[in-house]
């Protein structure tokens, strides 16, 4: 039988040494990793590094316009964060959809990103924030745009000596509006069949920057480029929402799998994007901002 050695470093520098020496498998909340080991999806690792004692990886902070979420932050902590409720409310919407109370208490945002599932719920919200991932090794730090990080299901550009230490994004302002929507087969403990996140900067009724990201409809989370281009410079109306929703359907390449069918997913991208945009429009009308 293969024996597994588990390292439990207390500090970041200690962890980076171990990563460099042994190239261990990283264990955060374990809600993906342990399932994969038990199910035979990955062979039993020779070395594991459990990072949950490293304080430097926890916490949510704002420094100037930059908001930073530690990689070890759990979804429960995200849901409790006033800072994120203000600057990334759609990330809270996504966090609320994840698993169950037990999973949200253990599962971390870092684990969700590093697991690299196209259905990972925190990823589309981070796409529309144009967040950067901070990766560190003993050789130093690098920042990678989240949209550049995933290369396929379960695949990333992380080197095996690197640790994700945090996620960083620029805080929006009063003109920023967000949404996150998803469909799952049941109300809890359901991996998304389709998801969509959006961020619009709207000033005086005109859309400036627009970002829309789609989950579970391509090998990685993707931007809906066609939809984004259509939105820029327009003002929101039901007609525009429909037009953009149709464009978003052409921005993705879903597949049939055990959870759903390609044709349905493609159509639902349209429904979710339209609903997201309509919700923003109704919020603005409610605020008298239009």
């Amino acid at each position, binding site marked *: *039988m293969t024996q597994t050695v588990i390292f439990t470093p207390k500090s970041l520098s200690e962890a980076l040494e171990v990563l460099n020496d042994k190239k261990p498998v990283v264990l955060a909340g374990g809600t993906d990793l342990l399932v994969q080991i038990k*199910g035979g999806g990955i062979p039993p690792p020779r070395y594991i590094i459990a990072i949950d004692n490293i304080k430097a990886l926890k916490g949510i902070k704002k420094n100037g316009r930059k908001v930073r979420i530690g990689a070890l932050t759990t979804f429960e902590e995200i849901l409790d964060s006033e800072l994120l409720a203000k600057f990334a409310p759609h990330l809270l919407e996504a966090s609320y959809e994840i698993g*169950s109370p037990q999973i949200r208490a253990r599962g971390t945002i870092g684990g969700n990103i590093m697991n690299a599932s196209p259905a990972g719920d925190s990823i589309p919200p981070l796409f529309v924030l144009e967040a950067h991932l901070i990766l560190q090794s003993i050789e130093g730090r690098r920042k990678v745009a989240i949209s550049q990080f995933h290369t396929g299901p379960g695949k990333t550009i992380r080197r095996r000596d690197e640790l994700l230490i945090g996620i960083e994004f620029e805080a929006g302002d009063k003109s920023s509006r967000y949404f996150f929507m998803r*469909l799952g*087969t*049941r*109300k*809890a*403990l*359901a*991996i998304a069949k389709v998801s969509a996140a959006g961020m619009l900067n709207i000033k005086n009724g005109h859309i400036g920057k627009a970002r829309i990201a789609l989950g579970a409809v391509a090998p990685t989370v993707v931007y809906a480029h066609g939809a984004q281009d259509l939105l820029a410079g327009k003002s929101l109306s039901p007609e525009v929402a429909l037009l953009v929703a149709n464009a978003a359907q052409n921005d993705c390449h879903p597949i049939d799998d*055990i*959870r*759903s*069918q390609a044709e*349905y997913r493609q*159509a*639902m991208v349209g*429904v979710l994007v339209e*609903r997201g945009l309509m919700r923003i429009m109704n919020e603005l009308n409610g605020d008298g901002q239009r």
Partner: protein
Amino acid sequence: MGLIGKSVIKAGGVERVTGKGTFVADIKLPGMVYCAVIRSPVARGDIIAIDDSSCNRVKGYLGLFTAKSIPGNNVIPIVFRDQPCFAAKRVNYHGEPIGVVAAESKAIAHTALNRIKVTVKELEGLIDPLKAWGHRKIKLYGDDNIFRHSKIRRGDVESAFRECEVIIEDTYTTPYQEHAYIEPQGMVANPLPDGTMEIYGSMQCPFYVREAVAEVLALPLSDVRVIQTSTGGGFGGKEDVPSLVACQAALPACLLKRPVKLIYERDEDMISMSKRHPSWIHYKSGATADGILRAIQAEYIIDGGAYSTLSPVVLFRGTVHSMGPYRCENVHIDSYAVATNKVPCGAFRGFGSPQILFAVESQMDRLAQGLKMDPAEFRRRNLLKTGDTTSFGQKLSWSVGAKETLEKVVEHSGWRNHIPESAGDKRIGYGLSTVFYGVGLGAGGKHLARTGARVMVEPDASVTFSVGTTDMGQGMQTVLAQVVAQELGLPFENIRMMPTDTSRVPDSGPTVASRATTMSGNALIIACEKPRDSILTEASILLKIEKHNVVIDEGIAFDRKDGRLKVTIKEIIKNCFGKRMPLTGDGWYNTPETSWDNETGIGEPYVTYAWASNIVKLAVDTQTGEVEVLKISSAHDVGKAINPAMVECQIEGGVIQGLGFALTEEMMADSKGKLLNPEFSTYIIPTASDVPEIEPIIVEHPYPDGPYGARGFGEQPLMGIAPAVANAVADAVGVRITDLPITAEKIWRALRAK
């Protein structure tokens, strides 16, 4: 009747919630070894070799046990004798057991399992039951791959259809359903020095397990003792298959002369254990202009899997239920259980009836729609009532509460009061179903329709009782303790049920078919007669009154005429012991006769029937096809609710399991018969968040032969949910889904095609 009809707190309930109780996985015996099951990698093939030579170097490896090691017969006896304990030459389904390895620890057993080399020559298998039926070349069972063909012939369907105003004809399909009991299968086999074998495990039917172990080990029944451990759910999934699990542990235990433990992994359990039969139903029914159900013609096919197991009886029950709870004089039913190269299907809450009732009740709504009649009114006109004769020719002499259940749900649900509520993309719909259920084993298993019980009063007025039926979480233990307490006049707390054990009472048949309360309840009432008589005799002496004037309630005996004259039952029992009066009793209960003519489908298949109606209120999202169930009202004629809270729990649990069957649960197999989603992340059962408001309604039309009028309950709440959901979806958005589960994708597709 102090304790009868009282919602006593469930015996063992607190222990379950706080994680206590002795489950089979908790058992540790000195010298215990572990085993793991070797399974077929293909759906059909010939076993060429099983080679464990690479295990011999594994420290702690104790050996390989296969069909060749079996001292007795290589057969799991159920209805027919076609299922082996271990496949010997030919494997017939993916995951079929072909041997076990034993080792000093579970980890070593699994290491050995991975090293065993199994060489199988793959053969073409039959996966689709419609193709397997009468396949010319591949013979899995008999000449035509049919385990059983059942029929009902009554009246003249052809001319009756000519009288109909509306005829609906369609095909319905239903998928596998997984029991999803919280505790996976597991057994411990403990060989004793005297050559006898003890079996501990999670199970519904200890006497089935005893028979199988005795057969495989070539032991007399007297030398096998089976003890049920706390059982974390069954739903039918622990009816026949635990026999297989027990033999897998008992064989190495017998040959190694050491205790053996075997606990299934969840995926292993899902791949290899029984499920609800997938079905294919072609159904045609017609009604006359005045709203009378005139004719039914149906073909009902169930996918039995590789071995017959319980399929013949499942089919029998499905056939009896294929007309629904209605009067209909012209009926022509043909039903078939077909052999395929897939995991054998078996018992599951409702036992062959939920599939066909999905068709029956969908058809009823469609006929009503064709007649432009309210679906409740259409059912009202056709529902069976006391004094009627069923479609299979049985006169219902008493206690038919069908109509009352219907009126109750209509009244409580706000039936079709939906127009103002539909808003945005959401459309509200209401759906109704009315179902019935033959309680007990009936003519399909009447040789087993008996049960034993034993009651022992101790000198301190505590009582133990034993029965041959089991508690698997459904609450039998509590209800039976209420019966014993009531019969003996003692407080509920004084009564303890002994773990069900084949050495305590005679073979009492299985715990299935919602039979435990009625059967063991009746046997216990008989068993209480003798101790009760001693108690009454002694009370009459102490109170100096005549025996028939003694009343006992919750530990006090008093004079019927003068309540002031009292004596405690403790004192009475002490005296009884002093006088060496008998305080132990045995009971034996047989059900009244049942009958069934397999050629005509005419007879009295069950002694009594339970009646139920459900109304589902839901919202359909017209853009996504998603269904949100808002409320379910579910009314059940249970004869008598001995413990109303537990009846309500059964209603809630069954409704939820029925919702899974209706909306999300679907075990899929690939073209080679391999199950694709044997795990709870992809086999989707409802979670707590998915549960709508459930309104349980109890209706009581007493069953004269039942204990206090109780009729037996447990399965019915699941049975009518899927058609009620289908009917509600049709009401909401006008699309009719005929293949379960009713997924968002299917509704969306149907809406788009409209």
